[in-house]
């Protein structure tokens, strides 16, 4: 067993890799990549996929064949009001209470707007949504999001699509220690499997990413690479990593080793 079960709201899962569905070279490549990554959750952008009916339906039919949990998002929303409306439409269309809540503050960094995020989380939780807020490592905002009804938090690794990895490992480590019992998912900014493994080694519960797989030269192979990295990082965390030391300590015991010059015994 490489992956222990964990829970997001009331759903038990074994895969700790959550994949976005945008930017793939083709829908077929998306489907093959999700299979290779072994994801049990995929995110979907409502705005994009429902601009029309027929095409969207064909697309859904294929996504649903994957037999994964859908996590609709509010990508592109800039106010709580906008996000709430989008969320309600998403619930209607996809028939799920789950929602990746994304409210953007700045168009350049796509940094989350924490004020609007808290407000929208409060309202949507009271309407029965199970909110997965895309947030930063700010502990104050995190506490307010939990008070507002979120039971999962998704701090960024780096700005969306930048592939820079964990820009503030110290803050992410602090967040993990501060909320030992809240499911925490690193969402956004992951560029390489090593970034995903790093977050998992810290004890994060899962990784959410899109661009790093979708825009890879071979998305299917990269999906597999991330699957392995997430599993490796999680397993390493469970296995308890050693601490870093100042002094070297030989891995082969030296006590009792003959120190003759073995090459020149004759």
């Amino acid at each position, binding site marked *: 067993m490489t992956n222990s079960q964990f829970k997001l709201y009331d759903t038990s899962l074994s895969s700790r890799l959550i994949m976005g569905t945008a930017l793939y070279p083709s*829908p077929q490549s998306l489907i093959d990549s999700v299979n290779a990554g072994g994801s049990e959750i995929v995110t979907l952008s409502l705005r994009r996929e429902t*601009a029309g009916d027929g095409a969207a339906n064909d697309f859904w*039919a294929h996504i649903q064949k994957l037999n994964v949990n859908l996590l609709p998002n509010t990508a592109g929303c800039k106010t709580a009001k906008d996000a709430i409306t989008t969320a309600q439409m998403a619930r209607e269309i996809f028939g799920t209470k789950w929602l990746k809540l994304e409210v953007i503050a700045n168009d350049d960094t796509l940094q989350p707007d924490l004020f609007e995020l808290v407000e929208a989380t409060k309202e949507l939780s009271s309407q029965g949504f199970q909110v997965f807020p895309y947030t930063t490592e700010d502990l104050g905002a995190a506490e307010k999001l939990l008070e507002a009804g979120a039971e999962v938090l998704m701090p960024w690794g780096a700005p969306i699509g930048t592939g820079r990895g964990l820009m503030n490992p110290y803050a992410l480590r602090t967040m993990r220690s501060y909320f030992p019992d809240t499911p925490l998912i690193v969402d956004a900014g992951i560029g390489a499997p090593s970034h995903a493994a790093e977050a998992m080694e810290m004890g994060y519960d899962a990784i959410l990413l899109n661009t790093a797989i979708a825009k890879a030269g071979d998305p299917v192979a990269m999906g597999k690479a991330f699957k392995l990295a997430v599993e490796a990082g999680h397993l390493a965390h469970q296995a308890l990593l050693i601490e870093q030391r100042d002094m070297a300590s030989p891995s082969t015991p030296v006590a009792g080793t003959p120190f003759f010059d073995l090459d020149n015994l004759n």
Partner: protein
Amino acid sequence: MLKINVIGAGILGLWQAYRFAKAGHQVHLLEKSETLFETASSRLAGAMLAPFCESEASQRDLIPHALRSLALWSEGPCDFESKGTLIIAPPRDRVELTSFAKRTIEHQHIKSETIAQLEPSLEGRFNEALYFEKEGHLAPRPALKALITAFRDLGGEVTLGFTGTAPKADYTIDTRGMGAKSELKAKDRALRPVRGEMVVVHAPGLKLYRPIRLLHPRMPSYIVPWPDDHYMIGATVIESDDEGPITLRSGLELLGSAFTVHPAFGDAKIIEFNAGSRPSFFDNLPKIVLDETHIFVNGAYRHGFLLAPLLAELVLAHIENGEPIEGLFQ
């Protein structure tokens, strides 16, 4: 000599009709619209003959086929340009060039001096670029016209406003795009529309000789020179069957990207805003689907102009010599 019906006068249908007529068959081209090219997605195409750039999105298998198709264009009746493709990125996004270069072959990394030699209008505007020398482009509308003229000169028959049943023939080649969706669905082939939006501008103050692709993390775009100082700026790629006009956002983004390439586009006149659908299968590659004597050729996605000559060649070889259809296009 066989009797062949070709349904649909877009780029796929025209190449099939032209190629079969050239091979000496009796070809009848049947088109739904009353006016030629009125509803064909092809009239909105970028019509870049770009085997290497198009392989950037993980489709390296396509390169040998695309190269073969590119060579076939030179045997056809259309004028086309072989001036290559230039790939540029705003200074802040230069990493996009590195990324594009990593995912493609047959390009040169060039600096401002070479850029200025190739495109004097861009002198001093970009420090580096990728140059794909072996690619080409053409103007889609004149090309469609040249094909139908050549087809008629070969004795081909054209029926416009066609809606009923096709006349009796040995084979029917069906290139109706989204029009064939339900028949293809019955054969378990899901065809979907991928929306594309484009702009045509008239910019006599500027001279660009080859397609320029502007890389951008959010909105990649391209500018293709058309005859008489016209430029086509394209194109969005949206999973949607919306057939309405271009949105304000897409219009702004496309025009903004042209302005990024050269501020002289600011004085260009907007000639046309347009939007259409690219018929596409799930792997975004065209397919030749055989149903006895009914042969679907469909799903060209972004590759209609690039692959139309090859698809005609493959169907011809299949009908005349029973050659199997190449795996990628099955």
